């Protein structure tokens, strides 16, 4: 074939989809049940600290974790970054900050979005609180995001 030397590259859009529904088990399912009901749950560990969001097993000791306890709906930012343009699949409509947030009563931080006007409004150690989505189904995005505590 002589025309293999053609420099024009063929291109076609390709979408790979995994339209999965995952079973949760009792611990993840318990946490998501809490979100649907408007509360945040963590798992109590043998040393009394609380892992939030909860896992079935303690990542440090591998003990099974079976006691879910309610934690606060406000907490402290332990680190953050600014997400200028929401990326295509993110469940956020406007620019936002990613943050690791340790909720009151929990001892480990969770990842979520914080709604502020810009990066200048973010700082490590700032207080934020949950903003719930009106329609909830038992999903991590039942938390629409977090907002600075004073504006909650």
């Amino acid at each position, binding site marked *: 074939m002589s025309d293999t030397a053609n*420099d024009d*590259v063929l291109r076609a859009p*390709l979408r*790979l989809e995994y339209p999965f529904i*995952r079973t*949760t088990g009792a611990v*993840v399912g318990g946490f*998501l049940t809490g979100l649907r009901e408007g509360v945040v749950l963590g798992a109590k560990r043998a040393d009394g600290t609380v*892992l*939030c*969001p909860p*896992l079935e097993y303690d*990542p*440090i000791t591998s003990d099974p974790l079976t006691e879910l306890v309610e934690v606060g709906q406000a907490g402290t930012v*332990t*680190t*953050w*970054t*600014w*997400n200028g343009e929401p*990326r*295509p*699949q*993110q*469940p956020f409509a406007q620019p936002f900050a*990613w*943050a*690791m947030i340790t909720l009151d009563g929990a001892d*480990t*931080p*969770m*990842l*979520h*979005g914080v709604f502020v006007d810009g*990066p200048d409004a973010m700082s*490590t150690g700032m207080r934020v609180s949950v903003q719930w989505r009106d329609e909830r189904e038992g*999903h*991590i*995005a039942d938390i629409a995001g977090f907002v600075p505590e004073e504006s909650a």
Partner: protein
Amino acid sequence: MRDVAVVASMQRQEPSIDNESEVEYMVPLMHGVKESIGITQADVGFTCSGSSDFIAGQAFSFVMTVDGTNPVPPISESHVEMDGAWALYEAWVKMQMGEIDIALVYGYSKSSGGSLRDVLATQMDPYYVAPLWPDAFAIEALAARQLIESGRVSLEQLAEIASRSRDHAASNPHAIRTAQKSVADIMAEAPIMDPLRPSDIPASADGGCVLILAAGDRAKDLCDRPAWIRGIDHRTDAHTLGVRDLTRSMSAKIAGQKAGVGNDKVDFAELYAPFTTSEFLLTDALGLGEDTVINPSGGTLGAHTMMASGLIRIAEAAQRITNGDGDRAVATAGSGPNLQQNLVCVLEGE
């Protein structure tokens, strides 16, 4: 431990390889590396590769590339959904069992067809994190801020890492980010994902690497100065970001101890450090000092071919030993968010 060495390698990295499929561009590397030491697939006792379906956009994508290994008659072969460095580890273990003397290892990806930083969100916890689609830069930026605010590293030190990597990349024909840039100019860059700047993030490339391991006398027959693997270990941290100290790499530290990094001086280190922050964490965890040249190839800041970059670190370190540029080197490979997994390999010349 049976003596096993890297005796040959070949790599290709480009910003994007549009006009060839993975197997089309890997076959010349597979044949080239075998021809360079005068062997054929019949001499190879085990073939192992690393690649990712999520990057290729195709299920079981690695089977397409297997055709290039000459699997007629059938060959002993395996694949890992990890960087090719883990394929090398599997081959090394098989060689320790004494079953085979020569192994062919490769890793590759053509990530330019998708948005790699977003594709990598699919490796996060599927219940709590992945549905929010944090991209790879955001996940690293969260760790970077903690590291900087801990006072252990400054933005200026990170800029020095970026500037030095560019200097080194300038003399590496496989690097793609080769424009030199001063620390002051990097300090002036606007953040791409605060606090990370464009020079702090990996230079994403398409490509791959093929490498040959040989044991004992076969290695000496095939290479004038084989790069002997004197220690190799890999460890993983917990997956949940909230339970990790993101300002330290425990997995790299333990893997480094097990591999014997600190047993002698290290002339140079090729570190799988996609971000400047990762390089700081790794040099800290491995206890590398001023007398060790870090990433003489420019590292993953100079060219980062996902699924091959770790294997390329081993290939780069081995090539320098074979060339006589040094006697003892460390190479690392990594995987997962915030370098969850780390593989450390100690290479020596004789």
